[in-house]
C-alpha cells in the first residue's frame, strides 16, 4: 500500500488550505489533514461555528491554534453547518492523533456539491504538500 494512501485517504477531497472533505450522502464532513496537524503540532484550541451558521467556499469558518501558531480554517464547500464536533473544545489534542476520524470539525449541508470538483484528490494533494512520488 502506498504511503499517501495512509496519510491522505483516497476517498477524501483536499483543499490547498489543508482541509479535507468527505461526502456522506448529501452532507460533507470536514476536518484538517495530517499534514496540517503535523505542521501545527500540539493543537491547544479550536474555534468552530455554531450549528446553523452559513459557510462559504474557501472562506474562513473557524480557527485552530497550536502552541506555536494560529491558522484559519477554510470551508471546502459552501452551505449550512448542521453538526459541530463539540468534543474538540475540551480535547483539541485529538487533532494531532486522529485528524480524519475523531477530529472531524464540522458537517456541512452543501449548496453546491460541484464545488468539491475544485478540490484536490489524494494524489494531487500529496504532490501539493511535497509528499508525492519522490
Amino acid at each position, binding site marked *: 500500500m502506498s504511503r499517501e494512501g495512509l496519510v491522505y485517504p483516497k476517498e477524501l477531497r483536499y483543499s490547498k488550505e489543508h482541509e479535507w472533505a468527505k461526502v456522506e450522502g448529501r452532507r460533507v464532513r470536514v476536518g484538517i489533514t495530517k499534514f496540517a496537524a503535523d505542521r501545527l*503540532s*500540539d493543537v*491547544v*484550541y479550536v*474555534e468552530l461555528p455554531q450549528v446553523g451558521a452559513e459557510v462559504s467556499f474557501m472562506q474562513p469558518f473557524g*480557527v485552530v*491554534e497550536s*502552541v*506555536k501558531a*494560529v491558522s484559519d480554517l477554510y470551508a471546502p464547500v459552501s452551505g449550512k453547518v448542521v453538526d459541530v464536533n463539540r468534543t474538540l*473544545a475540551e480535547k*483539541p*489534542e485529538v487533532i*494531532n492523533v486522529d485528524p480524519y476520524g475523531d477530529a472531524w470539525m464540522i458537517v456541512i449541508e452543501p449548496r453546491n456539491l460541484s464545488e468539491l470538483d475544485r478540490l484536490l484528490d489524494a494524489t494531487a494533494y500529496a504532490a501539493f504538500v511535497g509528499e508525492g512520488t519522490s
Partner: protein
Amino acid sequence: MDETLRRTPLYAAHLAAGARMVPFAGWEMPVQYSSILDEHRAVRTRAGLFDVSHMGEVDLIGRGALDLAQRLVTNDVARLAHGQALYTPMCTPEGGIIDDLLVYRMADAHFMVVINAANTAEDLAWIRAHAGPDVRVTDRTDEVALLAFQGPRAQEVLQRLTPVPLASIKYYWFRADVPVTGRTTMVSRTGYTGEDGFEIYAPVRDAVHLWDAILEEGRAQGVLPAGLGARDTLRLEAGFLLHGNDMDKTVTPLEAGLAWTVKFAKGEFIGAEALRQQKAEGIPRRLVGFTLEGRAIARHGFPIHQNHATVGQVTSGTFGPTVEESIGLGFVPPRLADPGEQVAIEIRTRDIPGVVTKLPFYTREPKRAG
C-alpha cells in the same frame, strides 16, 4: 534553510533525534523533537535535556573585571563569592534593558557572563566599549557548548555520571571542575524552566558525548531531549521573561518587575540615574501576568483592554500545558497591576476576559526532606 545560520555542535544529533529545526536568533535550533507538550511534561515530571549552545559566553578577566561588571549591570556583582552566579539586566544610560544575563564569578578577577544569542554581537560591542586596558574581554561562544538538564530527576540522573556530589551545588552556585563521564564541565544549578536542574558548560568537542551520555543514562526514567518550543512554555509558566519579547531597550527593569535586580546602593552603574529618577517619579507601566478564560492564546502584540479601551499590550502568551490555562505577560498601567484586576485581551476582534495574576503561574513542589 538559510545558509548563513549558525549550527551548534549538536546539530547532527538533533537531526538524528528527529528534531524540527527552525531559525532562531541567527542559529538553526531544534524547536521540538516529538511534541512540545510531551517535552514540557517530561521536564515537569521527569527531566529534559536542552541544547542552548547558541547562548553567548564572554569572559571578563583582569584587575578591572569587577569594576567593569559592576558598571555594566544593575545587580551587585561584588556580593558574589567564587562559585556563585547571579541574574541581572544590563542597561543603557536611559535605563533600557540591553540584555539580561547571568554573571558567574570564576575567581577574584574573572567573571563569565552568559548572554542571549540574539544580542551577542551588540552585547559584546557594548561590553568592549566600556572595558579599560585592565580587563580582557573574550568571546568564548564558539568554544563553549551549553546543555540545560532540567527537571525533578535531573540531579539523580546526572549524579550517576559524576563523582562530584551535586547536592553540594546550591541554587545559583556552580562548580567549574565537574567531570561528567570523564569530561570536565562546569555545572551550575540554574535554569529557565521553573524546575530544579543544571546548566552544563563544556568544550564544544565534548558536546555530543555529553548529550548522548545524559540521554542514555536518563532513558529508563523517561528523560527526553527538549526543544525551544517547550523551553518557551516552561519559562512562561515559571514567570521568566524573554528578552526581545517581554523587554528590550525601551523597557526598564523597574517596569519589567525586575526591581529586585537593581541595587542602587552598590555605587554608580550605567542607567542608575535614569532608574533612580523613574523610581522617584513613578513607574509608568508594569509587566504583569494574566490568565484568560478559555483556551485561545494571547500572542505578542495583542491589545490589552479595559472597558473596551486599550490600556496595554501582550508581550508573551501561550497555553500553559501544566497549569492548563491560557497565560501571558503584558504591560498595563500601575492602577491595573495588582493581582485580581479584570482586563480583557483582544483576540481576533473579540475581547476575551482575563485577570491579572501573581507570578509565577507555576511553582514546583518543594523537595521532601530525606
